[in-house]
Structure formats: C-alpha cells, structure tokens
C-alpha cells in the first residue's frame, strides 16, 4: 500500500508508542490523585508534555490545554469566547473554507442568536487580511481563520490577520490542525490568541489535541466537572495520549527546516508530474504558499470517488472532495469556495505526503494516475464531447 492520505491521519511513530506505553502499565496513576506516587509520576509527565508542546509553538506551558482532539479545541475556542464575551458583542468572523469543526460550530451559534460573517477567499483559497479588517464591527468578539487548509493546503497570512485583530481588540483563533508540526508557528510573534492542534496529524495518537489560550484571554469552559487542566477542562487526563502528543510534536519540530525541504521537493515533483502527464487537470490551492505535504488536483470529465476507488484497488490511498465521498449531494465547500463549478469540483483528488513518503512511491503514483484517469474518461459521456471537438 502507498499511503498518500496523511492530511486525514498519520501513522503513529514507534518512538511515540514507546513513550506512551509506560503510562498504560507502570505509571497508570491518576494525575489528580495528590498524594500517591503513581499520581505524582503522572503529574510530572503531564507537566513535561505541556512544556514540550508549548515550546513548539512559542507559548508558555500554562497556556496549553489538552483536549480530545482538533474538533474539541475548535468548539471550545469558538463557543467559549462567544459565550464569555456576550456582553461585548455577538459577532464572529470566519471564512467560507474552514473545517466543519469550525463551520458547524459557527452555524450552531447562529441558531443561538450570534451573528457570523463568512469571509470568502480568493481563487487559491487564501484570505485577504483587508477583508477581515473590513468585516470587523463594534460587535465583533472573535475572528477564526484556519492556519492552513486541510483540503487544498493553502497557508493564510496569519501574522497579518493577527495584527489586525490585536489592533482592533478582537480575539483571534486559528485552527492550526494541519499546520502544527508542519510549518513554524510562533503564537507570540503571530499575534495568535487561541490555536487548535491535533496529535494524529503529526504521527501522534488519535483522540488527543490541545488548545492554546493566551494568558489573559477570557473564555468559558466547554467541559464542566473536575478541576483538571488548571480548572479549565474536566475529565481525567489522557496521560498516555498527551505524552504521545508531546513526543510526536517535539520530533516533528526537530530539524523541521530539513524535513520541509525534502517534502517540498517531493510535493513539487508530484505536482509537476501529474500536471505534465494528465491533460485537462488543475492544481487546487496556492503553488508555493501551501503545506509542504499537500497536493490537490481536479481532473475534468471524471468523478472523484471512482478515481479514488480505482487508485485504491491498485494500492494507492488518497482522498477526494466529490459529493459521493462527502456523503452529501454537493462537492466540497472548499472547492466551491475557491470558485470552482460543481462539475469540476466533483473530480478532485488530494494526495498528502508524510516524512515517511519516498521518492519511489511518488514516482510510482505519478505513473499510475494517468492511465486510471484516462480509463475513466473513456467511460465518461462528458469526455466524449471533448474528443469530438478536438
């Protein structure tokens, strides 16, 4: 199997598993059990993990709160800010191409009476900071803009948007689930107030993530109960998961520059290889301002799910944003959001790399795609019309 769906999830590294294992067996104590030795060991592990994660994004350990993943971090950031700051205003700004964890949370808040502005993006999926600035009103309490897009990989001008929000006195949240461990992040330098991350995107375990909350930010809790996570989030800490997340993120941030250069080379080889060998194909997202591991294409005249299935039968694992893979009748809101017509958006394919991806795998994949696309086109009544015109 050649796995090119690392934007969906990644393999847990052996070193991460080794770091986690003792916390299931020997050091299984409850970090809240104050006076027991196992409890102390668990607490120590937690605080070390918090230091490590904070260090990777330029935060203080006290500003990092572990969650059950990226979705919870997004929910917490948006609902927590909206509810806590209701007396200041009821307006939230986000974009049309966010992950559903952000979009559906905003839609939920709209039903509760909050107002949400969905700022559109350009043809590459990029947000214009000026558009954010112009959308801010006296009622605005939160701006939420994703660091990098999970489907098309485009990286937003986060620092500029952060600056605008800071100036206007509006909280700034960024969903950095795809960006954490993949590109350098410094929450202080980038004026970020809240940042979501998720361990399974950088070779950590599933079901664990974190929300960075800048010191001083006024936010309500999402999970009520015990006093874990400095009284901010109830539930007995997932010590093993948290240790795994910290180990994975530390490793991801080690020699990031070097790994990124290697990934970008492979990514660009894949992009050029596909664009050169398959006619009627477009690259989605920005050519250079994109995640080092992301490629996304639309192949005209074919439908994404049948492409996915065909590739899967040959051992290549990728994903698509077609209607038939999204479980709705519409293709991905991201592809529609960058202005693609439905019929083109249906023919999308995302191939996302990891540090384990080899050049041989990329070569083999490039070779496989062309003939499969052609086979599907030969079956397509839309392509028939194209051939006739030529």
């Amino acid at each position, binding site marked *: 199997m050649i796995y090119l769906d690392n934007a969906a999830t990644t393999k847990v590294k052996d070193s991460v598993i080794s770091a986690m294992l003792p916390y299931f067996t020997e050091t299984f104590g409850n970090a809240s059990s104050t006076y027991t030795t196992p409890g102390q060991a668990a607490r120590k592990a937690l605080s070390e993990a918090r230091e490590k994660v904070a260090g990777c994004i330029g935060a203080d350990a006290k500003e990092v709160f572990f969650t059950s993943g990226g979705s919870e971090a997004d929910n917490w950031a948006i609902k927590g800010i909206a509810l806590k700051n209701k007396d200041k205003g009821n307006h939230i700004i986000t974009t049309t191409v966010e992950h559903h964890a952000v979009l559906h949370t905003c839609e939920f808040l709209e039903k509760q009476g909050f107002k949400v502005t969905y700022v559109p993006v350009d043809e590459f999926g990029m947000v214009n900071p000026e558009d954010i600035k112009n959308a801010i009103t006296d009622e605005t309490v939160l701006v939420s803009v994703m660091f990098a897009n999970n489907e098309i990989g485009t990286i937003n001008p986060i620092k500029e948007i952060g600056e605008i929000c800071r100036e206007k006195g509006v909280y700034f949240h960024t969903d950095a689930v795809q960006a954490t461990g993949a590109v350098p992040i410094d929450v202080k330098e980038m004026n970020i107030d809240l940042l979501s991350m998720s361990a399974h995107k950088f070779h950590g375990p599933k079901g664990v993530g974190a929300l960075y909350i800048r010191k001083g930010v006024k936010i309500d809790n999402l999970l009520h109960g015990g006093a874990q996570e400095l009284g901010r989030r109830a539930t007995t800490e997932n010590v093993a998961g948290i240790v795994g997340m910290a180990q994975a993120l530390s490793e991801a941030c080690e020699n990031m520059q070097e790994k990124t250069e290697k990934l970008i080379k492979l990514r660009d080889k894949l992009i050029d290889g596909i664009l050169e060998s398959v006619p009627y194909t477009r690259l989605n997202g920005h050519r250079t301002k994109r995640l080092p591991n992301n490629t996304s294409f639309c192949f005209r*005249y*074919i*439908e994404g*799910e*049948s492409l996915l*299935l*065909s590739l899967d*039968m040959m051992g290549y694992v990728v994903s698509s944003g*077609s*209607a*038939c*893979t999204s*479980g709705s*009748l519409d*293709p991905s809101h991201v592809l529609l959001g960058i202005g693609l*017509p*439905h*019929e083109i958006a*249906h023919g999308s394919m995302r191939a996302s790399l990891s540090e384990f991806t080899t050049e041989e795998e990329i070569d083999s994949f490039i070779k496989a795609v062309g003939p499969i696309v052609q086979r599907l086109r*030969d*079956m*397509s*009544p*839309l*392509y*028939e019309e194209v051939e006739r015109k030529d």
Partner: protein
Amino acid sequence: MYSEKVMDHFSNPRNVGELADANAVGTVGNAKCGDIMKIYMKIEDDIVKDVKFKTFGCGAAVATSSMATELVKGKTIEEALGLTNKAVVEALEGLPPAKIHCSVLAEEAIKAAIQDYYDKSGIEKKVECSGNCAHCHGHHE
C-alpha cells in the same frame, strides 16, 4: 463499503462505449450533481438487440449502469421498461444507503432511451416514469 459484485462491475464494467447504429439514446443526470449516464440501444422487432453506456459518476453509478445494461440486453421493450432501480440494486447485492440515489440513474436512462426510440420511429407512446423526471431531463447541456 461496496459489495464484491459492485466492485466487479465497477472495475470490469460490461457494455461500456458507444453504439454507432443505435436507434435509442438517452442521457440523464447532470454534471452539476456529479452523475451523468448516457445509454445507447439498438432496438429491433421490439427487442433490445444491443446496448452500451457511458457514465460520469461514482463507483455506484458506474456499477449500476453496467448491471442495468446486462439486465436489459436481449429483453423486450416491455421488459426493459419494467426494470426498476430496486432490481438493479438487488442484482448488485446491495448498495450503501447513501448511494441509492446514484442507482436511480440507470433505470431513468433506459426509460429515456426508449422514449427516444418511440419519438424517432413515430410511435406515439409516452414512457411512464416512476422517477423524478424533472431532475433527469433537460438540464444536461
């Protein structure tokens, strides 16, 4: 997610292509929705002598097209008109619930092709359709 039968018909579709001497052609669905099926039939003495299809769509759409053409080949017009999407799905050993809408296309394409045959040969008959004709017709430009 798909049954073995579906995967078989998807990876090895029967009757793909065009029919140069077709006298019944039907196209349903539209690119906007992500599924288009075009069916070509050669009808002689009330019998579907030959049939071919082309489909733009997901795995379920391709597999149902393939299965439907198998099921009407050699049948009378009457029998072909009696083919339901349910029968096609059963012959494929089932489809995931979210995919049933993709399978309706094949039944509709066959009906549209037979209507085309009636129109072309001056037969004044209207094909009764159980589907949602408004969805199928007219907006595939």
